């Protein structure tokens, strides 16, 4: 009888020791975060996941670019039958808008959560050679996304000042929703993250390799961190974001300081530069969006799919976006401060078929470095730095302001303004806006530009009066419900 007990005991011991192992199952398509973020390889893949999330059509793959935001900015002809009609009318109660708004809010904050989560696991790779690079990218991304949320959902600071609640800023993983920071505080946190990122990225390979080169060494395992820095959060992007941040914080001296520092550094790095006439070649596979000017561009492999029915569909379907040219865009591109010599006017098809986003078929080896430019979506570009500098100098040194604006104009095939007479701070401000309107068609930039200046939104034959009801996106219902202020 004793033998049986011993046998059973032995059996259960055996079972128990292998039990832990047996119970530790892993699903096939999933990997636990604890396992994934153990080494650099996992971090790089997870980082790629954040970039890919930003490239979704609900974010920079469409809506925050030529989609919703540029419909609001008034670039396209949108009639009552059009899918974007509600956005065109700023009907924020409309379900179609609310769905897009909810996606933007939750996907952007979702990306922030992932940044914070990865930051909390960073100790796992403390000794890794790319530690600084990864942490710098994460902090830069966190700042960029927060700033974008601020631009859309934050208050009109021109009216409300910097001390009203703007949006929650998440500096760490938390399951408790954060209280809304004031604009001042929010932008301070953006700056703080950017400064830290700048410090971490001071040895960014982009400085030596440039933005499109692959820094990987033959024979070594592929490291995406070293490949094509221009499609990742990089040193120069962080510096440019500091300029953007200062502009939104209405801190012109800082904007000038950060902007000129960046221009000085970029003058040493030729991989990011303004285009010249030589870059405008009307060839079959031409880079119409001049990605050489992008300081950071998001690689959107599905760009062509995201444009399906928008720029290449049937003219009469409810999704197609056609530039509102006659009597409207025509005026800005060809008259006043504009000129038909404008490369943008020549190249982008603002007259009828908008071809700025013309891409290759993704099957044409989109990951080939030579083709990658067709899939690069501008996140922050060099002209913006010139425009911000111009704006920042308007009321302190109008000549410097003009010089910065003219630099951009020259690189756009436009005559210099400096030769014009009677330019004062007000007219120059208008010229800058003209330039922004011409430059950023399809980029989702103009709407928040109007918002920052609390400027009416020009439309064909009328303008939409500036109001908070237009410029401040209402919060998602769930946010109000679960994060009451």
């Amino acid at each position, binding site marked *: 009888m004793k033998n049986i007990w011993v046998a059973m005991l032995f059996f259960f011991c055996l079972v128990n020791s292998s039990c832990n192992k*047996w119970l530790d199952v892993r699903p*096939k398509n999933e990997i*636990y975060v604890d396992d994934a973020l153990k080494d650099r390889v996992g971090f790089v893949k997870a980082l*790629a996941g954040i970039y*890919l999330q930003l490239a979704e059509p609900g974010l920079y793959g469409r809506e925050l670019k030529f989609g919703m935001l540029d419909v609001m900015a008034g670039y396209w002809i949108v009639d009552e039958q059009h899918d974007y009609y509600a956005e065109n009318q700023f009907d924020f109660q409309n379900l179609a808008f609310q769905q897009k708004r909810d996606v933007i809010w939750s996907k952007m904050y979702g990306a922030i959560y992932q940044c914070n989560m990865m930051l909390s696991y960073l100790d796992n790779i403390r000794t890794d050679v790319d530690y600084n690079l990864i942490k710098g990218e994460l902090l830069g991304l966190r700042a960029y996304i927060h700033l974008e949320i601020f631009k859309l959902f934050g208050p009109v600071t021109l009216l409300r000042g910097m001390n009203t609640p703007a949006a929650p800023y998440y500096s760490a993983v938390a399951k408790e929703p954060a209280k809304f920071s004031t604009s001042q505080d929010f932008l301070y946190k953006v700056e703080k993250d950017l400064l830290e990122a700048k410090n971490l990225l001071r040895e960014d390979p982009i400085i030596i390799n440039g933005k499109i080169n692959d820094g990987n060494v033959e024979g070594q395992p592929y490291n*995406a961190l070293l490949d094509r820095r221009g499609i990742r959060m990089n040193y120069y992007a962080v510096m440019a974001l500091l300029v953007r941040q200062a502009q939104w914080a209405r801190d012109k001296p800082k904007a000038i300081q950060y902007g000129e520092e960046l221009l000085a550094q970029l003058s040493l790095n030729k991989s990011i530069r303004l285009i010249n006439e030589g870059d405008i070649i009307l060839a079959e596979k031409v880079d119409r969006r001049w990605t050489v000017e992008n300081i950071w561009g998001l690689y959107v492999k599905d760009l062509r799919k995201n444009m399906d029915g928008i720029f290449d569909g049937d003219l009469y379907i409810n999704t197609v976006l056609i530039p509102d040219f006659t009597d409207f865009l025509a005026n800005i591109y060809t008259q006043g401060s504009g000129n038909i010599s404008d490369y943008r006017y020549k190249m982008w098809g603002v007259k009828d078929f908008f071809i700025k986003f013309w891409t290759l078929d993704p099957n044409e080896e989109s990951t080939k470095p030579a083709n990658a430019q067709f899939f690069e979506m501008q996140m922050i570009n060099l002209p913006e730095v010139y425009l911000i500098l111009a704006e920042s100098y308007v009321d302190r040194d109008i000549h410097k302001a003009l010089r910065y604006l003219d630099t951009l104009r020259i690189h756009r095939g436009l005559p210099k303004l400096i030769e014009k007479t009677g330019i004062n701070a007000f007219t120059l401000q208008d010229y800058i806006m003209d330039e922004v309107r011409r430059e950023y068609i399809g980029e989702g930039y103009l709407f928040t530009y109007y918002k920052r200046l609390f400027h009416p939104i020009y439309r064909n034959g009328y303008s939409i009066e500036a109001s908070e009801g237009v410029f401040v996106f209402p919060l998602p219902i769930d946010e109000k419900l*679960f994060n009451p202020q």
Partner: protein
Amino acid sequence: MLCQTLMVYAQQRLITLNIKNQSMYEVLEQIRTQAKMDLVGDIGLLKDIKKIGLDVRNRDLKEVLAIISEGQPFEFFLLRNTIIMSEKGAQKDDKQAQNKTSQIIKSPKTYILTGVLKDDRGNYLSGASVRFRGAIEEVTKSHSDGRYEIKVDANGMLTCSMLGYERQTVQIKGRKRIDIILRGQTHIIDEVVVNTGYTRRPAPSMTGASSVITRRELEKFNHRNIFTIIQSLDPALYLDYDIVSGANPNVIPEIYLRGINNIGAYSLNTPLAILDGFEVPLERLYDLDINRIESISLLKDVSSTVLYGSRGGNGVLVVETRMPDQQKASVTYSTTAAITVPDLRDYNLMNAVQKLNYEKSSGLYDASTFHTEPDIITEQQVLYDQLYNNKRIKVLKGIDTYWLSQPLQTSLSLGNSIHIEGGSNRLRFGLEGNLTDLKGAMKKSGRERKDAALTFQYRISEKLTLINQTNIQEVKSYNSPYGAFSSYAQMNPYQSLYDGEGNLIKKYDDETLAEVKFNPLYNAGLAHRDQKKNSFWANRVLLKWNLSEHFVLKANAILERNRSIDEKYASPQHTRFANMEADSIGAYNYIDKKGLWYSANINLSYKKESLNYKWNTNLIGEIKSDQYDEESTLWKGFGSDSTIDRTWIDANAKAKMRSDRDKISRLAGILLTGNYIYKNKYVADFSYRLDGASNFGKNNRYSHFWSVGLGYNLHEEAFLKEKNVQELRFFVNTGVSGTEAFIANMNSSSYIFSPGERYFRENVYRYYYEGNPNLKWPQIRSWSFGVTGRVWDERIKFGLTYYNKLTDRMISLITVAPSVGIPNNSYFENMGQLQNRGFESAGAIRLVDNTSKNLNWSIGATAINNSGKLMKISDALDVLNKSNLVQSGDGTYVQNTFYQQGASVNNIKGVKSLGIDPASGKEIYLTKEGRITDKWDVADIGVIGNKEPRLFGTLNSIFNFKSLNVQAHFTYTLGGDVYNHTLVDRIENNDGRINTDLIANQERWKAPGDVVAFKDRRIREKTYLSSRFVERENTLRFSMLLVNYDLPKEWIIRYKLQRLKLSFVMNDVVRLSTVEMERGLDYPFAATFNFGIMAQF
């Protein structure tokens, strides 16, 4: 002559024994077993006997008995096949020393009585015990042909008994021949055996509440829904028939036992289903052929549910299938025909004339209802008049469509099962097959079941038995192309179905509301598929090894492969695609799920019995692994409606969305139980289980569960022995069990990766799931006590149990603000405490018991009360309340639970209403602060009613006459609240454009001073959740009428039939309620009439 043979046979019995130090009782038991004889005598004589040793080999029984009785205060003598033990002193005092028996034989008063024993079906009963009590005492057994003979005297009493039959006592009164018919026990079974899934235990050894339903009872029900049957016999199994799904055969009602233990999204409250020792989905029981079931045990108290540790907290339903149990071959065939008749008595819709009048009085044809400027009113009124006249013409033409009947049918469903068993002594087999096509009340809806099972039972040696069972099943559930029933209830009766040319009208242009604009019958005629095919193959092996007298080792293992294919096809012509782009119309969803699960357990049991006690212990080890892979594909935008062909659709669809999922979960447990019974009076019980599960990450992988219980069988006490008390048992138990959370890996956050997804050249991990590493196992702490009894020759039976359960650390999905940024804005959290307490009581009384006429009638009733209460509300629950504020399409809020400390979780939420203000016709509310207002505000939502009935249960009447059995079963509920959605959705929130119930014509507010229940019809604002619609409901449902008749054996024997049973079952024929409300919204309720025949060859 026969008598002598027996004596000789008895004398020749040889005994071999080698015993060291065992009690006299054990020795006698072994002798009795070897001799295959009965042992009769006063066991009290053995009380003070010391243990003995004995070594005999092939010695005659008599000699052996003489040896062991030497020097003892008792002696033995043999009578036929009975060993009689009596006190030595008594013998000695009696001088005529030969033996008592011989003296009795010589007594002139005694004679031999003969007779035949039969059961109520006419079968001869062999082995029944026949006992005579008079001047002498005699015991014998009936022979294989039912005959018996026994020595009696003229004035004694004869008692016949046999397991499974009711005992009968008759006065001899000098008769020479008495034929006796023993009636099979229906609801009274002497030895109720509870199958816990791991062990089988006689009810008196249990220390908790449980109920058992045997095949004998199930047979009578001849009904296909196992849950309905269980509910009729033990209403503790609560079926929550929702008013939406009605009698849809493809929707299993929500089931729970003793209240709701867990709340929140994804909470699991259904009892655990165990089939032949292994956990199965509840749906498996739903589709199980009733004819295959041997017994169903319902485990309610922690003392038995704890055996399932982390899974048993919601109660356990243990189902055991039949094993081939006859050595004789037999074939049983049964068939049922069920007629399903839709029950529309809850609907009382308007006809065409009434409806148009209703529209008119609702102001639908007054321009002033919709416009305010006088100019426009005058201008528009012309159009409204035109619209009204058009509809009036239709009414005058006599169009009065009865939409409700359009999608319905009175259906006939057939079911066939066959059961074949046979084999030899060592190898027996059973083969079962079932084919049922259950048709629903809605046209083209139903459930088709096919299954087969083959069982082998092989006795390898005396000690080793092997059972192998293979089971295959396929269930096809198909839903009606006619869509939701509610869409027919809304249609306006003045619209005709067909146009002038006899074609179905697709669209009614004079309707403005999308709900009634399209003819639902048009969609019903299109290509359609909404079906699910479930199939599985399972093989189970059971090895039972009697290691020694005390030890038994059982190994039980099952392996199953299953697959389900779920298809939903919506034709591009369907009106829901009206006005949509050509490339987004048509939808086809195909979900293919393949699963594999295996489970095994090893059970080592130890049993020791002596005269005074029984000791039983089990050590069980168990593992379980469950995994599946699921591929889901959705195609959209295939303009033309070809045949439903996957290849064609794949090639032609504009959009294709594919998503894959896989899950694996594992569980391992060790269980130790012990059960001690002292003198059949005192019972002590303990169990301990350690469970580990893959679902609970590394930090909290294991959890402990335990229970202890005590029982006291008062009826075994000497002072009650003489009284007419067959059973009086008290028990109390307490312990901790759990409920399984079924989401895999709730603890671990995860990324998902798919090969094609890249950012430039790097593969990506996408953040997919937010885990909660701090999540702990939920626990249910409970205690209960109860009493059961049978008195007055079992004429009265009763039972009462009180229980108290506290669920701690419930697991629920918590929604967070989207800015937190976690996937799906949700994660799992332990939260709050929930208490359920209540009592279950049952009583039955046999009103008529006429043995001579074979007539009896008994009635019974059960009453149950459960009250659930939220004890501690955590912040998480507060959040849950917010996420429960779901708005439906029209902007009103959906009636779902509101969690409030101290309130039931079965509640109704809303704002307290003070009724309709007679001055303004508006509804007046009471805010949380106690202010009176006419503004409805989300913030004022609170608990306004409790759906939990104060009392619910069953009433039944069982009547037997010879082999006719008639049973009526009722269920009732008393005092629960309901939210009358008919009043809200169909009357107040109906601006008149959809058809509605006639009660909508009730008085509504018209002018100041009107004191009415409904607000002004001209107020166009929606009515939100309000206490005005909470009503107290009492119901009585005639759930079943059963008539069973076993044809007398002498009638059928010539057809070579062993048994022929006819049955008729009627379901849900009457339902009375104090609340008038439309029920069966998406699918109507139905009454069914079953006719069945069972034949055994």
